[in-house]
């Protein structure tokens, strides 16, 4: 089993005719993702990689059963794309755009909550359930089917971790990138809960970063609720204060958001700590016996 995404999950791609959208759709299809429809305003009636394109999400869901939507649209259109998908009744929304205004994300996330939809992102690489399906940009070659749940703010960092795991012969159940912040739809706790409940996930890797207090909340959850072993890496240990490193959410302000503190609370909560993807893979290997 896997979380959030299986081989049956039917997917709609927003911005499917754009450069990135069309390329990534082809890659997803090749991997086996069940892409059933795409949307690009003004391109309704066309086809991309054999997938029908619609002007509006509501038109697509009128013709196809859609479980999840992923958007490859510029950040200034990300709010509208998400609202359209939510209003059309789609319950799982993946937002890949980087730099979506915080005001727009507050609107999207509140609207999603009111309509019972789950949002992954923004600024997320998406997720992959190796051997089954992928929804996003995870390079499949680094992953393998297995029982380790991987969860990261950063896309590339989760690829590194999967690469190290896979090279050690350890597969993954699902690999989830929650995005670079500073506002998140699904949080680390949300994903940890799903892994905890997933019978086929045995060990979880949590990749954290400097900035904010999400890892502190994850640590609370791990401490109080989790029965499965968690291995964690926190990057930005050498980050200078007051400088934003790539992600909008990755900034140490004053004494808040430091990597050392996050490592402390995660460690106290029982998570094993690795300093590099290689170390993480080694610990996971030991935990799985």
């Amino acid at each position, binding site marked *: 089993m896997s979380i959030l995404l299986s081989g049956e999950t039917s997917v709609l791609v927003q911005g499917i005719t754009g450069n990135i959208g069309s390329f990534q759709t082809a*890659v997803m299809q090749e991997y086996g993702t069940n892409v059933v429809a795409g949307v690009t305003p003004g391109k309704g009636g066309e086809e991309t990689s054999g997938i029908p394109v619609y002007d509006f999400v509501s038109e697509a869901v009128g013709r196809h059963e859609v479980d999840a939507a992923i958007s490859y649209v510029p950040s200034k259109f990300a709010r509208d794309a998400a609202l359209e998908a939510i209003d059309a009744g789609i319950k799982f929304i993946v937002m890949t755009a980087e730099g979506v205004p915080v005001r727009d994300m*507050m609107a999207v996330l509140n609207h999603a909550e009111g309509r019972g939809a789950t949002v992954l992102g923004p600024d997320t690489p998406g997720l992959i359930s190796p051997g089954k399906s992928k929804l996003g940009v995870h390079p499949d070659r680094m992953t393998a089917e297995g029982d380790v749940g991987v969860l990261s703010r950063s896309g590339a960092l989760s690829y590194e971790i999967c690469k190290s795991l896979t090279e050690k012969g350890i597969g993954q159940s699902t690999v989830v990138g929650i995005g670079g912040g500073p506002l998140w739809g699904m949080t680390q706790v949300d994903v940890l809960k799903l892994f905890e409940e997933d019978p086929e996930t045995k060990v979880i890797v949590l990749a954290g970063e400097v900035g904010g207090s999400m890892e502190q909340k994850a640590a609370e959850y791990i401490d109080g609720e989790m029965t499965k072993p968690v291995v964690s890496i926190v990057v930005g240990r050498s980050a200078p204060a007051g400088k934003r490193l790539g992600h909008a959410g990755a900034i140490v302000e004053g004494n808040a958001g430091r990597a050392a503190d996050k490592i402390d609370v995660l460690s106290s909560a029982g998570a094993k700590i690795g300093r590099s993807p290689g170390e993480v893979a080694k610990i996971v290997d030991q935990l799985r016996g």
Partner: protein
Amino acid sequence: MKTVECQGKDLLGAYGVPVPDRKVVTSKSLLGLCAEDCSQFPLPGMVKAQVPFGGRGKAGGITEADTPSELLSRASEMIGSDLKGTEVRSVLVEKRAEILDEIYLAVTFDAGSRAPLLMAGKEGGVDVESSARLRGEGFHTARIDTALGVPPYLKRLFAKKLGIVDAAAFGDLVESVYTMYRKKDALLVEINPLAVTPDGLMALDAKVDLDDGAEFRHRELFERLREEQKHLIEGEKGEPQRLAKEYGVDYVPLDGDVGVISDGAGTGMLTLDVITEGGGAPADFCEMGGEADARTVARSMEVVLANPDVSVLLITLIGGLTRMDHMAEGIANYLEENEVGPPLVIRMCGTKEVEGKRILEGLGIDTYDDHSEAVGRAVELSRGG
């Protein structure tokens, strides 16, 4: 985009927040010129260095002037002086207020509740530096429902908790701050201190951080603020920073000598960590983002290599959105047109890696597959190995 105090006050003033009479001067000559007609300056006044960081009061960046001659000497002294390693390029001269009480007031957003957060504390002033540390007694927060704005009762409640007698004026001020926060897509609007004076409430400092992601809604404002900052705070920038700005490359200069380029924020941070913990010292953080193409790589190389301290260039790539064929093309293009002094260490894997490696092999460049190995090699090279 973080604004400077005087810019923040302009923004707040435009939304109806009371701010002191003030005048900004950006050079000694201009100061002298203005001082000929000293009525242009609000005296007795405060003379405040305009710098893009906090804690300037304790560092000597704020002083007083009662007379035109005092003003001239104090302000002249301050312009061009060094404050915490930064050259002061401008000063704000503003009317000194009689402070009866100092309060802290801010609006920001709360990632947990996905809502704007109103924060206020009875203790304002220089000891309250980072909002993250404000958690004690006498400090109050409230989430704001964006469909409602700040309800009147909440303004009255905060006024009572803060001991502000004129609740109506405080309510208007909160409304102004919240409105500005929303309309201008701010991430933070902080007034510290908000002073209670005999003439009413007055914002004596202003820290405004605008959401870069929302620039498309505020083009003119962003351009104006950037233009102003050239005069207000920017000294001669290093060539890498200048280029990074021109190219829109995400570049943070650091103190070491290992030049770093990565195609992900998380792996960029990981690379810094592994370099540092392996005994090396990164020269920069340079992350190209998932949408990087060949040109992005070439430009990033130009930026990072413009730093003369770089003794080795480490490029760590693990393609998800980025395509290794595009990355390799970019590297090839750059090398074709430029002499590169420092040795190159490239780690490449992920989407289209076969094609990418083939291109680099054509140039006689080997790539690493393992991140730690690549970093280790770069650190070794930086130590002359």
